[in-house]
């Protein structure tokens, strides 16, 4: 009897199991099938790439992903290859690529990355030196030397630059040229209202506009956690502790002792914290995106940001609003060796290459390295990269690509063609070029674990800015955590990498 009943429940189970199987099968089919058909464009001249499929990983959205799309499409049509673009949120790019590299999976043929990650990523990337050598399209000699240096790791060029980053300060030209403001400022502060050269002037100006002009916020800077606050902070700190000598910003190049809590760093942070009171009321929630959206609306007097012209409003209106100014500096610099402050005649304005600049690289796991190289040399070529950096086909106010070639700086006509006002473009290019070719330019940290070191710094800085910790206390904690990272990764290895990355060995 029981047997019989059981035999009748069997069919149900069998159907159930079959159904399950079908679901899994259907899923597998869906998963295997591609969501979109590939375009088939035949170009008789470059048949060798016909049918080649490349996968390119880039940050999502307006700043980096969108701007390259028109040129990638152009290249697809020229070559017959197809490119699948994976867009990744900023906070996940480094982890995503690292997961893929470590796991040895063949997920990407081209990755658009920051050189600051080279310490961790170098072993997974194809050296490009032989390919670059004598390649007209790559036009290596056209790339500014400093922009070449940052993509080189242990004598190998691993990234083809698409960008060369630099922190700058910006001022509201309309407000600065206003006669009433000029007179009032002169009255109160006893000197002329002009683009700030020192951090003291920067503070005065911000204070002035906060108090005297209800429509303008004194300053706009990135100050929130998990954005790029540490880069703004380092851009400020660098002038307090370095006159261009290597190894004064992060670690002691003799023994990897963190310098981040030195009196110089602490004073820089103390002075930075004061800006909170004269900045936008919600400045503690700002990241650079907020600056780029709001400053062009004529709501701020001063701002700190990358020199991205993305800073300029979408429709190229209000171009006359934004003034470019190399980053201000302090008038004293701290000397780590003697433990003394040195008085200077001129403000110590050290341009900081925060993040160093996006560029394209080829993972060693790629099976299409030749085609990948064809794509990135095309994107980085003088002709195409000029369109990228001048936002020729992109009207979004957030491009992440800045000029990095001599030809970008020389070819002002190209910028005018991208609908820039000639004078504005010239001022912008001049300020940028001056900074990039300055005697002291400070590159960003590139050793293994850079991401982690900088994230800890981000925590310390945001805690101090928000008033949750005193600057000294916050930076002491950062130093302690940096030491822990160094110890875990091996002090000797880290020291050697650090010395190499700043050109000491």
């Amino acid at each position, binding site marked *: 009897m029981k047997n019989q009943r059981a035999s009748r429940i069997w069919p149900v189970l069998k159907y159930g199991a079959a159904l399950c199987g079908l679901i899994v099968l259907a899923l597998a089919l869906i998963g295997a099938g591609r969501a979109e058909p590939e375009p088939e464009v035949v170009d008789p001249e470059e048949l060798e790439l016909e049918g080649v499929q490349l996968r390119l990983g880039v940050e999502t959205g307006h700043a980096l992903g969108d701007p390259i799309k028109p040129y990638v499409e152009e290249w697809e049509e020229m070559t017959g290859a197809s490119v699948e673009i994976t867009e990744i949120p900023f906070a996940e790019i480094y982890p995503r690529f690292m997961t893929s590299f470590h796991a040895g999976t063949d997920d990407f043929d081209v990755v658009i990355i920051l050189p600051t990650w080279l310490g961790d990523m170098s072993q997974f990337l194809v050296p490009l030196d032989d390919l670059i050598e004598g390649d007209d399209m790559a036009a290596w000699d056209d790339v500014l030397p400093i922009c070449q240096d940052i993509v080189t790791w242990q004598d190998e060029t691993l990234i083809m630059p698409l960008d060369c980053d630099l922190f700058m300060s910006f001022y509201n030209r309309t407000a600065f040229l206003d006669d009433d403001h000029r007179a009032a400022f002169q009255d109160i502060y006893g000197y002329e209202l002009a683009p700030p050269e020192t951090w003291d002037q920067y503070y005065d100006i911000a204070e002035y506009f906060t108090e005297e002009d209800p429509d303008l916020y004194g300053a706009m800077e990135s100050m*929130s956690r998990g954005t790029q606050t540490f880069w703004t902070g380092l851009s400020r700190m660098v002038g307090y502790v370095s006159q261009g000598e290597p190894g004064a910003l992060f670690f002691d190049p003799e023994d990897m002792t963190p310098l981040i809590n030195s009196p110089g760093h602490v004073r820089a942070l103390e002075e930075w914290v004061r800006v909170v009171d004269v900045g936008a009321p919600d400045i503690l929630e700002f990241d650079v995106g907020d600056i780029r959206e709001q400053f062009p609306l004529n709501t701020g007097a001063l701002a700190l940001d990358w020199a991205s012209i993305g800073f300029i409003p979408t429709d190229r209106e209000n171009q006359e609003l934004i003034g470019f100014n190399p980053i201000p500096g302090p008038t004293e610099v701290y000397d780590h060796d003697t433990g003394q402050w040195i008085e200077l005649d001129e403000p110590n304005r050290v341009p900081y290459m925060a993040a160093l600049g996006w560029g394209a690289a080829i993972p060693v796991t790629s099976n299409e390295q030749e085609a990948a190289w064809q794509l990135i040399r095309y994107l980085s070529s003088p002709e195409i990269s000029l369109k990228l950096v001048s936002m020729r086909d992109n009207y979004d106010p957030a491009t992440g690509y800045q000029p990095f070639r001599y030809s970008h700086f020389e070819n002002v006509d190209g910028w005018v063609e991208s609908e820039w006002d000639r004078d504005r473009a010239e001022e912008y290019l001049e300020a940028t070029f001056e900074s990039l070719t300055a005697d002291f330019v400070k590159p960003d940290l590139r050793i293994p674990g850079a991401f982690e070191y900088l994230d800890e710094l981000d*925590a310390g800085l945001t805690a101090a800015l*928000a008033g949750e910790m005193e600057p000294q206390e916050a930076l002491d904690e950062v130093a302690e955590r940096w030491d822990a990272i160094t110890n875990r990764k091996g002090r000797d290895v880290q020291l050697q990498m650090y010395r190499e990355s700043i050109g000491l060995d």
Partner: protein
Amino acid sequence: MQKTALTRRTLLLPAVVILLGLSIFPLLFSLALSFGDWGLGRGVPYEWRGLSNYAALLADGRYRNAAFNTVLYVVITVSVQYILGLALAWGLFLRPPGGRIFRVFFIFPMMLAPVAVGYMWRLMFQSRIGAANFFLAALGFEPVRWLSARWFAMSVVMMAEIWQWTPFMFLFLYAALMNVPTSPIDAALVDGASGFQVFRHIVLPMLMPISIAVIMLRAVEAVKILDTVYVITHGGPGNTTESLTMYGYNVGLQYFNLGYAAAIAYTLLLVVVAIAVPVIIFIKKEVSYT
């Protein structure tokens, strides 16, 4: 007889296989990781480090802070969710006008993606452009730095969690309430008991087992709080609002310090089990007595 046994097994087998397959290997793997360090495959081989990861946790201020925050998140959000959920369930139980529409409205938040909810709340609590300070100003209050001061930022995260998961409490408590036998209630009412007395002395005791179950379920989920913190504060300012999973996520999936991340995750797991097991045993007893 043979086939009954087969049937019996077949019913349970798929669930057991899937859960074992997708949890036992990862659990053992993580356990091994927590006693060492490993670089995800290439290059660096697995390195045994004994208890050093756990020892490091003890000295780690960021870990202690994250653990403390997690406890706060769990205790405050879950108890508020329970009280509100119970109040709403009781309110609807009293058959107000429009009850059927209300109850659908009330379960909306739990159906929405926590990531989207996080952004929704972050947008509302932006100190200058958000709605929260706008209403405060309308009521004559000073604007508040919601997202950039530790306790305010934590309270925004908690509000988002409460907004999202009170419906979960409501839903289950309401379902249980609808099944409460009416005769004891009616009898008490006949004896002249007030509505509140009925609630306090008759309904609440009957809801006890289900209350414990939903509180435990929510607590276990709340310990894993990640999406809302990730979106609303990203742990900031500093690391002051970081939760344990957020810290674990940073260490494991951002810094790739896999061993340490596994140790963090395992302590979390132990805490969760420590919460869950006594409650489960308690429920078993309750159930077997009634």
